């Protein structure tokens, strides 16, 4: 287990290297001079020169790349062109809402999809199973922003129970924090629920016909215990990896949901920065989100290894 953990940690290094190369290249992919693009067409020669110097664009590209890597490693992601604040500070300020949103969504996903999967598996011989399969297929076919619009329509107009825009930090009280987040977190979760519940169901259905469940039944254990304890424990292990996938969906989804529900998180920062052509911030956000994603996948893999005794005791 220790060796596995170390190996898994080391494997992050090349991945993050490639990630930083891609993020670095983002700016250099832009057609024409980035400084020119940032400042607009009617800017003066001097101000362009100045910005080029500030961004280091006047140096050879290889030098720029190593400067950029060096800066990342020292925690310096550059300066926002829009607000002149350090990028790390800008991102850090926006971190709370995004983290809250994702955490609540993840809780929603697990709380909704696990019971659904168990229920569907318990009812596997009824018409419920094909109905579930069709609904889960429908679930992955609905664009989340459209689903969000429908909910805004339902809750903003027809049943105005929840607010459809805004955010309250948790410091202002857990209740108002939850109150503002429930709807966006639900939308964000809803899209992933179909997928996760489906994966859980497939895993449980596979486990249910394994030899070991027959052994458990032969002991005289009741069917509900067979399902909830033995089948579920086995299905849960491969599902941890699915949670990794769900997090990827959530990270992409926050961009849309934060924009729609005007939540001042990292996703909204990214969209705003794209409109403002604030490249250092765009790079910073993309780099940080990918780093989080890689880190979560690492944790998921370690959790997987920990949950599965075949790996834990190897």
């Amino acid at each position, binding site marked *: 287990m220790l060796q596995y953990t170390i190996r898994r940690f080391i494997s992050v290094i090349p991945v993050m290297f490639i990630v930083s190369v*891609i993020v670095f290249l983002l700016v250099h992919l832009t057609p024409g001079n980035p400084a020119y693009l940032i400042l607009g067409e009617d800017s003066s020669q001097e101000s362009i020169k100045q910005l080029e110097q500030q961004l280091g664009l006047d140096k050879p590209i290889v030098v720029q790349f190593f400067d950029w890597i060096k800066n990342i490693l020292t925690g310096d992601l550059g300066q926002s062109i829009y607000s002149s604040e350090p990028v790390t500070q800008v991102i850090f300020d926006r971190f709370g809402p995004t983290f809250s949103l994702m955490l609540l969504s993840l809780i929603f996903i697990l709380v909704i999809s696990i019971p659904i999967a168990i229920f569907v598996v318990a009812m596997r011989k009824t018409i419920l199973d094909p109905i579930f399969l069709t609904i889960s*297929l429908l679930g992955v076919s609905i664009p989340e922003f459209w689903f969000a619009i429908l909910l805004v*329509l339902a809750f903003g107009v027809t049943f105005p129970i929840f607010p459809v825009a805004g955010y309250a930090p948790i410091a202002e009280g857990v209740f108002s924090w939850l109150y503002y987040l429930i709807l966006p977190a639900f939308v964000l979760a809803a899209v992933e629920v179909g997928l996760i519940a489906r994966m859980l169901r497939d895993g449980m259905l596979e486990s249910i016909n394994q030899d070991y469940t027959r052994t458990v039944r032969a002991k005289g254990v009741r069917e509900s215990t067979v399902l909830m304890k033995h089948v579920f424990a086995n299905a849960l292990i491969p599902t941890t990896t699915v949670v990794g996938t769900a997090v*990827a969906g959530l990270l992409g989804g926050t961009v849309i949901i934060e924009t729609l529900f005007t939540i001042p998180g990292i996703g909204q920062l990214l969209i705003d920065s794209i409109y403002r052509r604030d490249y250092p911030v765009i790079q910073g956000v993309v780099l940080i989100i*990918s780093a989080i994603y890689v880190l979560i996948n690492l944790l998921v893999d370690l959790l997987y290894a920990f949950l599965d005794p075949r*790996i834990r005791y190897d």
Partner: protein
Amino acid sequence: MFKKKRNILALSLLLLISLATTTASLWLPLSPAYIDPSQRLLSPSETYWFGTDDFGRDLFGRTIVAARVSLLVGVVVSLVSTVLGTIVGLVSGYYKKADFILMRIIDGMLAFPALLLALSLVAALGGSITNIIIALTFAFFPVMTRIVRSAVLQINHLQYIEAAKTTGASDIVILLRYMLPNVLSPIIVQGTFIFAKAILAEAALSFLGVGVNPSIPTWGNMLQESQIYVTIAPWFSIFPGIAIVITVLTLNILGDGIRDAFDPHSTNRKKKRFLRRRNQDVTLNGGS
């Protein structure tokens, strides 16, 4: 039986949508581009089946015409990702040395949530249809590469491949004549799913305002425009959304159907394979 009917229904629906949107100018009673400020935000009626938008344009016609961009983006992205992913996957699965480098790059690309990668690429390149196709291809082809590679690794040591190698067949022949036909089914299935995902992603990009030029009717653009009118003209938001759902759903049903047709126990087998691979990895990595 139920599934077969479902697949046929989905395929017919997809063909109908394609036919309707390509021949739209021949049969649409109202021009989707005709602006009539006196007819702003009308609810659905006999004249305007889906109502009108904020410029008084016919939403039914616009919804039909908007399918062009979605289908175009979907087809091109899924084709290019499939070809690119298949080539890289075949090479990577077959040549060990290339594999090491290629997989590090692919892993790096997979470290971005797909939508985020597409979003930042479009932000860098600018939002034309071509750039969106490029961005989405980069976002989706790495998954295809992974799938093709693992399929190749599965069959690489099988007897008929070994036999072909000993008869002195060239690598190209082995890859194209022996490998490719045997990894084709996961490729086609994944290609269909990429088609669906690309349509969703294009709509999301346009909706966020970083996609296709707002003057071109696309479902994402329509939803973006409709957003501020959602309380007074809900039909403006509802119909383009339904169009996306139907199109993507038909593709997902087809993908599912193709997977079942190729392999009735696909979900189970894939997971077993996955588990086995996982365990192998661990033992190879050397336990205590």
